[in-house]
């Protein structure tokens, strides 16, 4: 078996679930003949036909609304946002129709809304967003953000099988930049469970998505100075794996929450708040966040570099905190 990219892992999950379960279908823009703006769905129209790879007009709200309706009859729709930024146009359907439906009248809404998120590709203000902070506030939603190819496949498989509405944020920077061998055959990575990506004694970095790789690289660099980082990959952003978060913090007593979001309203903030409430006695220092500044994602490379967290910024933060 050979290594596959993060993008190919997502394609595999879609293809295999569609083969396994005829209730699964794809709906979105330019999915079929074109195979999607990032080619995630390439070949699926030829394989499954236009009734299961449904191209739509430019109507994000109707795409999600139609997916909700189909799910009420037991289908398992997977909606693609061409860029995740456009999910803003479906906000009402996601937050007010899909999310509270099971609570309101007991009817599950098993849909997945997926698409390319994240920056570091000079996509500018409207092609670089990480919208998890906007959606974590919606009771009834689940939010997933894989950092590896194996997780991308296993988490998407789990998301499609989950009876609840799941937002699946793929980091476009990782699409073709990381490659791994995947577990054989059918597997799920459970939603709601974080993963210790690196065991360490001195300080916990809690992160997800593309930032996981920043954390791991920083950990390697810090070994030299004898700082042993633990790196926790959240994988699911809602509901948070509070147990795993607290366990890591109780072990290291020092923590930095790292994420590629504007600071205010970030998932990183929610994680920090949980730590401050439930792990306080174990803390040897303040709960730090390393996020982006509270600005839109700027376009020009030097601006975006100044905006995004990176290994240097993390290493500096770690040094600051461990000498606390």
């Amino acid at each position, binding site marked *: 078996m050979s290594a596959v990219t993060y993008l190919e892992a997502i394609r595999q999950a879609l293809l295999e679930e569609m083969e396994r379960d005829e209730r699964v279908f794809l709906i979105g823009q330019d999915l079929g003949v074109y195979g999607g703006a990032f080619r995630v769905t390439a070949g699926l129209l030829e394989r499954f036909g236009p009734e299961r790879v449904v191209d739509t007009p430019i109507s994000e709200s109707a*795409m999600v609304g139609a997916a909700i309706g189909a799910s*009420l009859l037991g289908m398992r729709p997977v909606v693609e946002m061409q860029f995740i930024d456009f999910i803003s146009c479906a906000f009402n359907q996601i937050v007010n129709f899909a999310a509270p439906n099971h609570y309101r009248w007991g*009817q599950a809404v098993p849909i997945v809304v997926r698409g390319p998120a994240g920056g570091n590709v000079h996509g500018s203000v409207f092609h670089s967003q990480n919208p998890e902070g906007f959606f974590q506030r919606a009771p009834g939603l689940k939010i997933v953000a894989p950092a590896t190819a194996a997780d991308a496949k296993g988490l998407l498989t789990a998301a499609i099988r989950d009876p609840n509405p799941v937002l699946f944020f793929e980091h476009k920077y990782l699409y073709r930049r990381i490659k791994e061998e995947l577990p054989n055959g059918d597997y799920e990575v459970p939603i709601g469970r974080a993963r210790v990506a690196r065991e360490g004694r001195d300080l916990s970095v809690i992160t997800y998505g593309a930032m996981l790789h920043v954390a791991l690289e920083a950990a390697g660099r810090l070994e030299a100075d004898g700082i042993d980082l633990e790196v926790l990959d959240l994988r699911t952003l809602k509901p948070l794996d509070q147990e795993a978060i607290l366990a890591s913090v109780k072990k290291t007593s020092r923590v930095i929450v790292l994420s590629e979001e504007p600071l205010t309203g970030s998932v990183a903030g929610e994680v920090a708040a949980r730590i401050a409430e439930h792990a306080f006695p174990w803390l040897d220092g303040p709960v730090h966040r390393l996020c982006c500044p509270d600005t839109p994602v700027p376009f020009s490379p030097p601006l975006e570099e100044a905006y995004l967290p990176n290994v240097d910024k993390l290493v500096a933060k770690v040094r600051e905190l461990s000498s606390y």
Partner: protein
Amino acid sequence: MAKVSRNWGPLHPAPPPPDEERLAKTELGREAQLELYRFMKLNRMAEDRLGNLYRQGKVVGGLYSSRGQEATSVGSAYALEPQDFVGPLIRNLGSMLVRGVQPSEVMMQYMARGGGPTGGKDANTHFGDVSRGLIAPISMLGALIPVMAGVALAARMQGRNAVALTYIGDGGTSTGDFHEGMNLAAVLNVPLVLIVENNGWAYSTPTSRQMRIKDIAVRAAGYGIPAEIVDGNDVLAVHGATKRAVERARGGAGPTLIEAKTFRMKGHAEHDDAGYVPREQIEEWKKKDPIDRFERHLLGEGHGLATREELEAITSALDSMLNEEVDRALASPLPPPERAFLGVYAESPVSPAASGRGGRVAV
């Protein structure tokens, strides 16, 4: 002081008098017509009971009435087959009754009782039951249209031979979801029927300030789908138009938009005295009351389909039935507080077969 009248269009005109002849030769037989009558009466009488409960302070929150629009709800829903799906709005109690919803279910919802379909979690007619082909709306107008397009899409994918019927008000047609939903339904050619209930008003806003057109039906041409304008206070006309649209959809010809011209005889909600509605407009429409008209038709010369005694028998049967329904609803306690914390997430995959009614609300 500024002139306030500016921009105000003409009053919402009443439709022409019904074509008695066509009424006479409707394809619906006597039994069916008496059933239509029964459902319209039930619709109105159940809402009257809700009005009493409201005045007794037993209703929690707002109460919405469909008085004057019963023919639209009942006539359209009556055109559906058992396997079809309907997505009613808050003024479509009649459609829900036709689909087998019990008045006590709705009364419990309005009174926030634990025995209602949502167990007290949501209000009024905001509940659904896939097993009865009933889809619940959300308050945000328009949002249900793309959802019902998806229901229609799934029905086709699953080979159910089923049609999806839903409703929108004149005001609701101004929402982006109306446009996105109808365009998507048209392009995908799904079996969807939309009834636009043009009752002249959106809360306090007359249709003339909601849009620059008289007939909302013209919008269908923008989606490449057929439309029909129908007298919404003529239950047989509404039924006939819906039946045609439903069969067209079932036959694979895609969506239809039906504009039903009708009138909201009460305020937006019980608290609203509708002082902004010109008196003469109300008087004009009183004459076209859908139930009185249908009664005249049933008793009418030439085709005496029913006697006054028969109609009175139906009414008094409904009356005693509603007494029981009210008692049943009042007997239901408020929900236990702990219920507030249950059922946010669905625990296990749900198949349409398994999907049920209130029972599936975590209670």
